[in-house]
């Protein structure tokens, strides 16, 4: 193909070429004249053909946002690039070029038909984003590894594939292999796959496929599990009580607490720690469950509110629509009456009447809207009060539960201190247990050291608890303010939109009437 254009210089897609192509391929005849008058915007073009132009480099296509079909065949393109913004592309033809690797297609999620026929591709990959792919043409390339076909299993919609002219197609098992591994395929190398072939192929590769399927299923199951876990966590996060349904907080308290860990090896401390941990976890779980319950409450509150507001708006819109319909009926009648009327003074009178009608409609619609705004404001304020109360209650209860945690910690601290001091006394006396490690022994040098160590551990624990509590309170408060803000903002937006709509409509009506006036006067 390139031979034909040997005389021509390799080119890059530029503005001139694009304009020319768009002009040539745009609407014809009468519509074409119109198009020429107005000019065609690149973003309105749906299909573009750039074949046999000796293009070396794809460029300047970013304006074609809505392009559905792009033909770049029979050029000398070496690299797929510059197609990132063409996200609506459905049909892409890059056949008869010099492409070596598949790349740059990651944004084309709507692509259904891809042709890379007669290139220099040796490996099928980088097509992961093309979930809707139905037709893939990869004939006359240099694909030589059968495993490439397994890669194609991920395209659930793939129905047509051509791979002839590749080294891989020389293999004697080629057809059977493809039929077996891509069972949904309908056409292979421009031929329909008959049922018999499919059966034979399946029988032949039965075992390996089963194994593959099993692996895929496992993978799928794992992915789903992961997903479910993530969703669960997300749900807890919206309730602001994530990681409270276990010993996570307790564990984190001891994670950075080296002294505490050291002290736990003292005799009697491990039992103490065990009891402490159990009690602590129970309180955490309490918080967690309470949080979920409160979340449910807030959700129903919000749902009821949304539902009611929606109903109110719908009802109001219905009223508005009825008013407009009634008006339009009358308006049409009077317009045609005006057109038929011959006497000038009469016409003027009728036009006046009409404009009075229009302003009446305007008043009516605006009254409706104002009424709705007032009603909604009241409701929104009520909701705001309720939700703030709910949040306040939640925070209060959580804080009291957290205080219990702190009490536990204090209690534990005292106990620990007692044990430590008695151990110190023993150490002073010299009858310390032999099995204590060296660094633990190091703590029992004098009273200050041991008291400091225990105190440090206690401080760390309290800090952790405080942090968790602060986090919860800040997050829920910010959620609440955001929610209320959003509701207010939405309401304002809605109001502005409606007012704008009404004004636009009334303006249109008025201008229509004015036009009528002019045309009458002209007549």
């Amino acid at each position: 193909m390139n031979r034909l254009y040997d005389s021509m210089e390799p080119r890059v897609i530029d503005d001139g070429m694009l304009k020319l192509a768009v002009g040539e391929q745009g609407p014809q005849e009468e519509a074409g004249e119109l198009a020429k008058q107005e000019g065609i915007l690149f973003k309105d073009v749906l299909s573009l053909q750039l074949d046999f132009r000796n293009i070396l480099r794809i460029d300047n296509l970013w304006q074609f946002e809505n392009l559905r079909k792009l033909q770049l065949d029979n050029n000398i393109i070496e690299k797929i690039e510059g197609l990132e913004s063409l996200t609506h592309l459905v049909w892409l033809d890059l056949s008869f070029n010099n492409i070596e690797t598949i790349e740059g297609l990651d944004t084309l999620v709507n692509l259904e038909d891809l042709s890379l026929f007669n290139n220099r591709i040796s490996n099928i990959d980088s097509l992961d984003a093309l979930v809707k792919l139905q037709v893939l043409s990869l004939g006359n390339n240099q694909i030589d590894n059968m495993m490439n076909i397994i890669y194609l299993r991920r395209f659930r919609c793939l129905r047509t594939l051509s791979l002839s002219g590749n080294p891989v197609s020389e293999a004697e098992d080629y057809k059977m292999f493809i039929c077996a591994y891509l069972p949904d395929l309908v056409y292979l190398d421009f031929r329909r796959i008959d049922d018999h072939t499919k059966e034979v192929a399946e029988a032949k590769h039965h075992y390996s496929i089963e194994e593959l399927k099993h692996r895929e299923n496992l993978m799928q199951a794992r992915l789903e599990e992961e997903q479910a876990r993530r969703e669960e966590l997300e749900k807890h996060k919206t309730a602001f009580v994530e990681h409270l349904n276990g010993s996570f907080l307790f564990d984190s308290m001891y994670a950075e607490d080296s002294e505490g860990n050291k002290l736990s090896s003292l005799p009697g401390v491990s039992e103490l720690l065990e009891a402490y941990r159990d009690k602590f976890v129970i309180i955490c779980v309490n918080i967690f469950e309470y949080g979920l319950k409160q979340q449910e409450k807030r959700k129903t509150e919000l749902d009821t509110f949304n539902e009611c507001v929606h109903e109110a708006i719908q009802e109001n819109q219905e009223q508005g629509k009825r008013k407009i319909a009634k008006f339009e009926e009358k308006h049409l009648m009077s317009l045609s009456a005006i057109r038929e009327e011959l006497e000038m003074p009469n016409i003027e009178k009728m036009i006046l009447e009409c404009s009075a009608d229009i302003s009446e409609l305007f008043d009516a619609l605006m009254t409706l809207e104002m009424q709705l705004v007032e009603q909604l404001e009241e409701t929104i304020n009520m909701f705001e009060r309720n939700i703030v109360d709910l949040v306040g209650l939640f925070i209060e209860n959580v804080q009291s539960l957290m205080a219990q945690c702190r009490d536990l910690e204090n209690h534990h601290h005292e106990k620990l201190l007692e044990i430590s001091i008695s151990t110190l006394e023993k150490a002073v006396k010299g009858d310390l247990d032999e099995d204590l490690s060296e660094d633990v022994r190091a703590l029992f040098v004098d009273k200050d050291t041991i008291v400091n160590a225990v105190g440090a551990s206690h401080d760390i624990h309290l800090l952790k608890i405080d942090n968790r509590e602060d986090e919860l309170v800040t997050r829920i408060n910010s959620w609440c303010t955001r929610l209320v803000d959003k509701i207010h903002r939405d309401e304002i937006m809605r109001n502005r939109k409606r007012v704008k709509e009404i004004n636009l409509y009334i303006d249109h009506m008025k201008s229509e009437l004015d036009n009528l006036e002019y045309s009458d006067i002209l007549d």
Partner: protein
Amino acid sequence: MEVLREKVEEEEAAEREEAAERAERARTEKMTRPVEVRKEETTLTQETLRDLEKKLSEIQIPVSAELPAFTKDTIDISMLPVSYKTNTPKEEQLLQLADNFSRQYSHLCPDRVPLFLHPLNECEVPKFVSTTLRPTLMPYPELYNWDSCAEFVSDFLTMVPLPDPLKPPSHLYSSTTVLKYQKGNCFDFSTLLCSMLIGSGYDAYCVNGYGSQDLCHMDLTREVCPLTVKPKETIKREEKVLPKKYTIRPPRDLCSRFEQEQEMKRQQEIRAQEEKRLKEEEERLMEAEKASPDALHGLRVHSWVLVLSGKREVPENFFIDPFTARSYSTQDEHFLGIESLWNHRNYWINMQDCWNCCKDLIFDLGDPVRWEYMLLGTDKPELSLTEDDSGINDEDDVENLDKQDEDKSFDMPHSWVEQIEISPEAFETRCPNGQKVIQYKRAKLEKWAPYLNRNGLVSRLTTYEDLACTNILEIKEWYQNREDMLELKHINKTTDLKTDYFKPGHPHALRVHSYKSMQPEMDRVIEFYETARVDGLIKREETPETMTEYYQGRSDFLFYRHADFGPRVKKLTLSSTESNPRPIVKITEQFFRNPAKPAEEDVAERVFLVTEERIQLRYHCREDHITASKREFLRRSEVDSKGNKIIMTPDMCVTFEVEPMEHTKKLLYQYETLMHLKKEEKLSRHQVWESELEVLEILKLREEEEEVHTLTVSIYDTKRNEKSKEYREAMERVMHEEHLRQMETQLDYLAPFLVQLAPGEKLTRWQAVRLKDECLSDFKQRLINKANLIQARFEKETQELQKKQQWYQENQVTLTPEDEDQYLSYCSQAMFRIRILEQRLNRHKELAPLKYLALEEKLHKDPRLGELPKMFT
């Protein structure tokens, strides 16, 4: 047995007397009232009676002038079985018992009328009424339920009034005879119906009592026809929705409450007045409708059927009037009193007071105070509701009638009536002659058997405006088995509107067609079975100037199309073959929302103003908007000052967009939309035109169907299905012929000769030989005769041919070509005949000796000729 009976009587005498006294008092009371009435009008009584009789004789003759009397001499009793003509000893015993019972009864209650116990049957033999009941389960599934059963009886029999309206009849015929002659009085009716109902498991009884005049004369003219009663609409209760927590408050009501109240009061007053007026009006009407008082009220004897609750899931007791097949509650005021009732097992006398019609009666037949039973032991166990009694009660079907009652004093003998049979033909024809007329209040119902009318008409209901039935209000005609699936034709005489209803299956999927005239382009509404149509059309309404079509379930979401037509342009061309459609002025099309498109691009309504060359589009309204986008195209193609054609200018398209969009402002977009719309307009016009054509076609087809009105015949209907009938007849013919042939082969050669001899005589040898010789010679003679006959014909033909040939040769020159042709054809035919004759002769010559030998052989073996020694032959 009688002694026992008397004992029982004595035991109960005290309370019985008491009850009887009460009954007596009531009866006298009841009796005196009409008597008083009569006393007041003594002079009129005779006249009224005569009048009444005259009136009755007019009313009671639904079938022509045939004698309504159903007397003995019209019945052929010679064919009836013995049980009809005589009484078995058991029956005799029963009759004696009944007589005794009757005597005691008349002794104890001398004021009550004699009991209706054993009337004479068609053979003048007294038969007890219970034995006249013959419980029978009909083989037709349609007759399994009481309503259809009663309807059948009322349709099948013609009503004959009682000879004396104040007395039970002297004769009670068997149901078989009644069915045969298809007429009977109320006792015959209720006997037949009761037999059928008991047969199909109901707890039914024949009642001898007193009915109103209307009831006794089968006069429904004061009843509303059940077909005209409209079913009451069930009023849906609106559930009040609880206001939700955040429901917005309604805007403040600024109206004065006081004014509202005043207004309400005023309204109420007006309404009250209106109601009062209506009520008065109604009362006036009621008065007019009320019948003239009946002089014999309460004395007219009638018989009907009582069905007690319990069996066949009957929830409560009710009456069935066998004349009209209507069910009444036991409180109905048509039923004025009960003397006695019976089923196939026992006979009960009502001992309760009937002063308040039947309203206070309690149908607890086991209560001996209220109901005096005749046969001990077979009493109704209702009072003593013990376990085993109810068990027996459940079991007692028709089949095991005689199994039970072993310990009881006397069983009712088995019915003397033959099995009741209704032939399928009679069952289908139902009414005598297949037709019946019932007169209701302001309505007349006519019924026909299916296939009786050539157009499939099975019933017609005529509704009148007035009581005298002169002004027809509307006519409803029901059809069956029509090929065009017509089911009901409804003609409203006041508006002249005709409405045809069709069952699914019409070639044009018609459902309802209402029209005033069959002329095209007139007011009409056609409804279709839309699932049977490709275009999903539900309804098409036409007026002289418009046509409106409603669709459903279309892929293009169209649901409404309305076309306005202008006056027809007169064409000068005379070619009548070319249709001249009315010009279309305006087409309006409306579409449902297409969820695949955004609302501002989804057209909701488009109007093609064809004459003004304008197209108006209205788009759907987005969910959060109250206004919808609009677009109007003016498609006048104009030429600018330089003579160039203007393709598209901004003022050719007036647009209102709720949310202005960029690309729609472009002329190119507008131009393309316009082009598309032009195409659509053409299509729509074509559609309208096609619809018009279709209407014409439908009208033509309907007219044809009305003329032809072919009826369909089910393939299972062996009697009517012509094809299968032909086939069957052909089969029968073939069978018959086969049979004949077989007969022929067994022809007896010897018969004519054996006749000459005395019968039963043994043949002597000599006689046998002579017989054989005679037979053989006779056969030989016949063979020769046959040969001669063929020979003679052959010769005759040849001679004629020769003559003809001669004649031809002589006149050959003068012959016309036609004559020559005739001659030639004659020759060929003659030659053919000669050849055939020749062949037959040859064949005969060949076969004759063989046949002769065969006969000889046969005769030789014939046992009648005895063993003829071979040497004699």
